[in-house]
């Protein structure tokens, strides 16, 4: 399968990229690692007029310390994220989930920013960004803004980025002491999308779970934050009882991998597993 023809632009700087985006208009598509986009191009599910390749923007590959947070460049590959000492020290949930993304060859090319901007609810990392209250840094010729992860994912494969905006980095708050994390992914084969996934971070307090942050992959058109589970745990509920609330307010899809009913069941079971693993109980 051969992609449809497109014009190709490879900017050498962020400013050039923003200019290219403005010039090309709505029919442009940005390519970073291309591991989600290339299959869509080849199946002609995506047929952009212009492809803007960010490959030369090395300034967006780094991870830096920003006081109470770390800022991960949008072009940091999954491979890089997995090995970066700052990410390993301050965002262990991201490390756990990234290790579950596809396979090594895909992780060599695919980027953290690309996986978020693609906004596929079956992809693992959007739920992690939501669970960690990450902020997404978007730049355009008009300036820069920070978008909370909870507002970034608007609909199926649709983000809050404007057509002239570029995702430049992801700001992930440092969690502080005492958090345990886990990403539970349920899928048919090694590299398949999650049928359901659960990202969670919990703080153990006197031997029980106090604070918890839980978000679900592929339980609706966007990643879902499980406030009901979090509130139940904060109120002293046992993990198993709190996890029963995981699917509350979700709109899970029905597809070849499973019905909405099956996903609702999975959400509770996997949330209980994820919380128990994170809390090491």
């Amino acid at each position, binding site marked *: 399968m051969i*992609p449809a*023809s497109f014009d190709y632009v490879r900017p050498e700087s962020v400013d050039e990229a923003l200019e290219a985006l403005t010039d090309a208009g709505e029919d442009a598509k940005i390519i970073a690692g291309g591991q989600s986009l290339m299959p869509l191009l080849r199946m002609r599910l995506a047929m952009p007029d212009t492809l803007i390749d960010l*490959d030369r923007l090395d300034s967006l590959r780094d991870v830096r310390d920003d006081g109470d947070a770390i800022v991960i460049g949008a072009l940091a590959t999954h491979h890089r994220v997995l090995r970066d000492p700052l990410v390993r020290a301050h965002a262990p949930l991201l490390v756990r989930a990234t290790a579950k993304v596809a396979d090594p060859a895909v992780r060599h*090319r695919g980027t953290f920013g690309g996986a978020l901007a693609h906004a596929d609810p079956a992809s693992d990392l959007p739920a992690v960004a939501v669970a960690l209250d990450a902020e997404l840094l978007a730049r355009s010729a008009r300036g820069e803004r920070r978008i909370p992860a909870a507002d970034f994912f608007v609909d199926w494969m649709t983000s809050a980025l404007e057509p002239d905006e570029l995702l430049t980095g992801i700001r992930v708050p440092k969690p502080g002491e005492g958090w345990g994390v886990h990403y539970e992914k349920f899928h048919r084969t090694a590299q398949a999308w999650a049928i359901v996934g659960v990202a969670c971070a919990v703080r153990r307090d006197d031997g029980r779970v106090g604070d918890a942050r839980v978000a679900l992959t592929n339980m609706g058109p966007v990643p879902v934050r499980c406030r009901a589970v979090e509130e139940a745990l904060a109120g002293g509920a046992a993990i198993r009882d709190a996890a029963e609330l995981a699917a509350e307010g979700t709109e899970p899809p029905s597809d070849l991998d499973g019905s909405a009913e099956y996903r609702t069941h999975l959400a509770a079971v996997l949330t209980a597993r994820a919380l128990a693993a994170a809390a090491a109980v």
Partner: protein
Amino acid sequence: MPRIRVEVDGSSYEDDVEPRLLLVHYLRDRLGKVGTPVGCDTTNCGACTVLMDGLSVKSCSVLAVQADGREVTTVEGLRAGHPMQRAFHEEHALQCGYCTPGMIMASIDLLRENADPSEDEIRDGLEGNLCRCTGYQNIVRAVRRAATEMRRPASEEVTS
């Protein structure tokens, strides 16, 4: 049409390519490197795996223009009798052979990161490469064997 410069298996090439040309088609159709097959064409099977700047990539999911300025190694670029090729031969790690070039390149990448992988680590590291003959047992054995050979100092290598 963009012009790319790429080093493939130790030789330099400079070519004008259509932006939509896939790396795997550039390798096969333009350079004649037909040792790299097209498998699933959907980024799943890993048959087209090559190394780009030393890291494994699925060449059906990279545009030729994205290889500009980079170094690509295909299965044809391995020296004759490479320990990984030999181990695949000796352990009967292929049946139809279609997945073999990708398996070998992904396995070499795996050993670069982990010179002595356990069976589980091999299965994990090769999760992006599918063998439709389901010859995984022997593939895992071959990678274990190649790992042992490649860790051995050159002086001990059997020259037969």
